[in-house]
């Protein structure tokens, strides 16, 4: 073996030695589990008797014989398609009002971000449950305003609304990313457009939004994926039942119930794969359409 070959072999071995924990972990906790999950999705399996091959049976049941599954898809899509845009609009709004030169901005940033940092905890879900209880603060506020109090736990739509408000309340991380993006927009652009007589609304649509569009895309994708996976609030708020009338039965919760309450491991695996494909398609659509609405400065050509 020549010296050069020997050296490159050694370099390769060193490289692989350093990343070997990742490779082992990737195989053990991601790749092999994915193959197992794919196999299980074509079987019925309850953990105690060997998996039984049923071909496309799980998928057939999912699409034709399980209204609860369709309901969980509907609830999840409503949660994602309503919650994510609301959360991002609110995040952008707050980022814009915080994008000023004021000594207080750091404090405000902290205050607005705090809900997001505690948001994943059981404590916050418990609190949310109680804020919206029949005689909780939200209902007393509604009656003070002269509106009729809502039975948040009696009506599936109301309980989903409650979950969505919780997700919007945790807008902090998107807000910080927007804020970083806003700081990168050159002030000269706004000044120049002021000279041209542009009004604030015009500036927002002609300068802010286009220059922020790559960050909007990033936030949109990250938030969509994590919203699809929401589990803890639905689990805690509905005490693990997904009620009332499956109104908070998010996909992750239904999958959890199928797998670990009813021991339908194969069915749950099939559900996970369909969800993975749906998220993949949605992400692909976002990427493809982004060509028409995401503006990259390098393409400006002026």
């Amino acid at each position, binding site marked *: 073996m020549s010296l050069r070959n020997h050296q490159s072999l050694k370099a390769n071995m060193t490289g692989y030695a350093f990343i070997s924990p990742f490779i082992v972990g990737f195989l053990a906790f991601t790749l092999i589990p994915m193959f197992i999950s794919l196999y299980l999705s074509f079987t019925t399996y309850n953990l105690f008797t060997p998996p039984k091959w049923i071909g496309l049976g799980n998928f057939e049941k999912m699409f034709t014989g399980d209204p609860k599954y369709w309901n969980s898809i509907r609830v999840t899509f409503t949660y994602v398609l309503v919650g994510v845009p609301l959360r991002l609009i609110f995040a952008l709004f707050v980022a814009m009002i915080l994008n000023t030169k004021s000594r207080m901005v750091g404090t405000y940033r902290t205050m607005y971000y*705090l809900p997001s940092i505690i948001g994943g905890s059981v404590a916050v879900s418990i609190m949310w449950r109680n804020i919206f209880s029949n005689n909780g603060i939200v209902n007393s506020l509604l009656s003070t305003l002269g509106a009729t109090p809502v039975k948040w736990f009696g009506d599936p739509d109301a309980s989903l609304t409650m979950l969505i408000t919780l997700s919007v309340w945790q807008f902090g991380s998107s807000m910080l990313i927007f804020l970083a993006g806003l700081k990168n927009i050159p002030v000269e652009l706004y000044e120049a457009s002021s000279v041209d007589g542009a009004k604030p609304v015009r500036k927002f649509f002609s300068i802010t939004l286009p220059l922020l569009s790559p960050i909007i895309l*990033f936030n949109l994708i990250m938030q969509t994926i994590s919203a699809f996976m929401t589990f803890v609030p639905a689990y805690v708020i509905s005490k693990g039942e997904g009620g009332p009338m499956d109104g908070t039965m998010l996909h992750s919760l239904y999958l959890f119930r199928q797998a670990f309450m009813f021991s339908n491991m194969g069915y749950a695996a099939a559900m996970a794969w369909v969800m993975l494909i749906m998220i993949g398609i949605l992400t692909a659509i976002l990427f493809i359409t982004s060509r028409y609405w995401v503006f990259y400065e390098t393409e400006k050509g002026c």
Partner: protein
Amino acid sequence: MAWKTVKWPIYHILVAALALLMLYPVFWMLFSSFKESRTIFVTASSLFPTEWIWQNYVTGWKGTTGYNFGTYILNSLTIVVISTIGAVLSSSLIAFGFARLKFKGRNLWFALMMVTLMLPGDVVLVPQYIIFTKLGWINTILPLVVPSFFGMPFFIFLMVQFIRTIPGELDEAATIDGCGKFRLYFRIILPLLKSSLATAAIFSFYWKWEDLLGPVLYLNSPEKYTVSIALKMFLDSESASNWGGMFAMSILSLLPVIAVFFAFQKQIVEGMSTSGLKG
């Protein structure tokens, strides 16, 4: 002219008011933890308790499953500490490999890592559970800590980005001085990586402390429960209208989270604006 002088006060009043509105639920929970259980909902609209009841913290501490919160806090801390050490060490090692070493297939593995970063966890939930069951790891903390020792994609990515900003001349100088790759990692890069390591440690702490699904799946005897499960048990025990105790322990469970947030806010907020994963 008049608008110029009132503009800033109005701005601050509105922004601060909105901020307080955002934080109101947290304050509501805090003050409810000092109200008498029976009065929490009757007086839901008034923030402050008429009488401050410290007793809630005593009754809440006892928990609902025969073990007190001391046990749960200890259990949570054990999991958090072990998995954070594992995640930070392994991720920095892997990140060094990706950022500083040239080897065949590096780009492929890096791409796989980035895909893993975006992969929804539900796909591997069932098979992982089956694997851990077969290994006999149920009702131990192993499923909750062992995977951390194989690197967390988010932290690896964060550290790779950071290591790339460290000048390569340092490596060359160290190599000329006869420093091997491992020494280079351990003696030169790791100390420079301090702020990234801290960011990763903080986020690891948050995720593990707040994790509910993992403990629910893998821990089934009450003496092994974490704080998250213990809080959830309050809701399950139908008999208990011990709202005060539940709020008290909710506040207690948030204290470390909030303390870490205020101690490291600059680091957290910056780590967030440049990466954007949490929440």
